[in-house]
């Protein structure tokens, strides 16, 4: 028998199998494994010849069918402890097919129910004084809507957020101290040394603010030998004065 079906018409391997069983008028409880396996594989083959992607699920089912077929060729060992399922290698498959068939039927009967905005309609007109400005959803809010909202938020602000995860507290005061520490001992460091790769935008901004604060407090010197030459930072005061420095976010006006 020639089978001209496209896998796209089937919801999955179970759907395809059910179709084959029905067109062959087989008893679902007594599937002819050799025949069904052959037909199933030929459908898959056709799809491959057409260079269509055959989903993994269809291939997995092919393997299952071959496995069952081969087990049925083995002699049945009549042992007392073997239960029914082991006696018939098809049992598991049959159960899945029956179960799947039931939900397929259920889906169809559900679809026969009168549905909103298809067979049944609700009052649409909303009196103008109704509604208090809170946005209306057409279904109630649950955990899913909550998780979904957060997920969207994260996607919108992906870049900033990833940095935020790993970043500890960023305060201008901290960065002032960090800069002073690095310049301790009369070291001179290039402006760019303070903006290393991997620093987040926030870190860069705060570092820069800290520098400006230090200049304002006359704690550091910034120099450049000529235009477009490296900018150098160095301490403008003695180490002792650095020790005495007391500054909080509030006194800086960043509180």
């Amino acid at each position, binding site marked *: 028998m020639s089978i001209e079906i496209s896998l796209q018409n089937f*919801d*999955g*391997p*179970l*759907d395809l199998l059910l179709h084959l069983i029905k067109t062959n008028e087989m*008893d*679902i*409880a*007594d599937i002819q494994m050799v025949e069904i396996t052959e037909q199933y594989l030929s459908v898959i083959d056709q799809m491959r010849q057409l260079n269509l992607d055959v*989903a993994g*699920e269809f291939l997995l*089912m092919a393997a299952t069918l071959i496995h069952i077929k081969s087990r049925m060729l083995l002699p049945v060992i009549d042992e007392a402890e073997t239960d*029914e*399922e082991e006696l*018939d290698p098809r*049992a*598991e498959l*049959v*159960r*899945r097919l*029956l*179960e*799947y*068939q*039931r*939900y*397929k*039927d*259920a*889906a*169809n*009967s*559900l*679809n*026969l*129910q*009168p*549905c*909103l*905005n*298809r*067979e*049944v*309609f*609700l*009052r649409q007109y*909303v*009196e103008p004084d*109704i509604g208090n400005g809170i946005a*209306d*959803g*057409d*279904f*109630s809010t*649950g*955990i*899913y809507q909550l*998780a*979904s909202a957060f997920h969207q938020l994260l996607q919108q602000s992906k870049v900033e957020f990833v940095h935020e995860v790993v970043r500890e507290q960023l305060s201008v005061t901290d960065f002032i101290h960090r800069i002073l520490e690095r310049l301790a001992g009369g070291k001179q460091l290039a402006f760019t040394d303070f903006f290393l790769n991997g620093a987040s935008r926030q870190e860069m901004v705060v570092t820069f603010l800290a520098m400006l604060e230090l200049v304002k407090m006359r704690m550091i010197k910034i120099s450049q030998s000529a235009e477009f030459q490296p900018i150098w930072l160095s301490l403008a005061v003695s180490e002792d004065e650095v020790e005495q420095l007391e500054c909080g976010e509030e006194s800086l006006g960043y509180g």
Partner: protein
Amino acid sequence: MDERCRAVAALIFAADRPLSLDRLCQFFDCGRAELRPVIDQLRQHYPISQTGFYLAEVAGGYQFRTDPDLADWLNKLNRERPFRFSQAALETLAMVAYRQPVTRGEIEYLRGVDSGGVVKTLLDKGFLRILGKKDVPGRPLMYGTSKYFLEFFGLKDLNDLPTLKEFSALDPDLDPEQSSDLENESLPAVAGTEEPEIS
């Protein structure tokens, strides 16, 4: 009709979701026994297929709806095309409806295909909701149907779902225990939906 009866009708008419008996009782500060006859009176006054719309009992409440047999007329009014379910969506929805609470793994075992996308669509459309996490290793999410699902299909509650047809070809000798399980499953199984044997 007395004022309370009229007020009940007006409230149900004006509400944008089905109003439950309990909610109505809160409004009128009275017991269910007092309001039930009022509802009965109204349902008699607005029966189906009489005046174009009727008082329906859906999603645990009461709501005025147009008669289903007038769908063709009303579709002329409706410029938007009604939401159409794909076969995959409908199957998945049926599985969740009859087997809730159910995990994605269970759905995929039953359908034999990956179902993440379908589940997400159904969640997005508000037909499904997350019921919590299953108390098994991995703590997978459990799904169930929403109130909107009932409203959409015009069901009073989950017991109002169409009964699952018995599959005639079912061989009673094959697995008797299983087949009796299936019979009971016309109702949503709440406990003891067996774990799929996913290798």
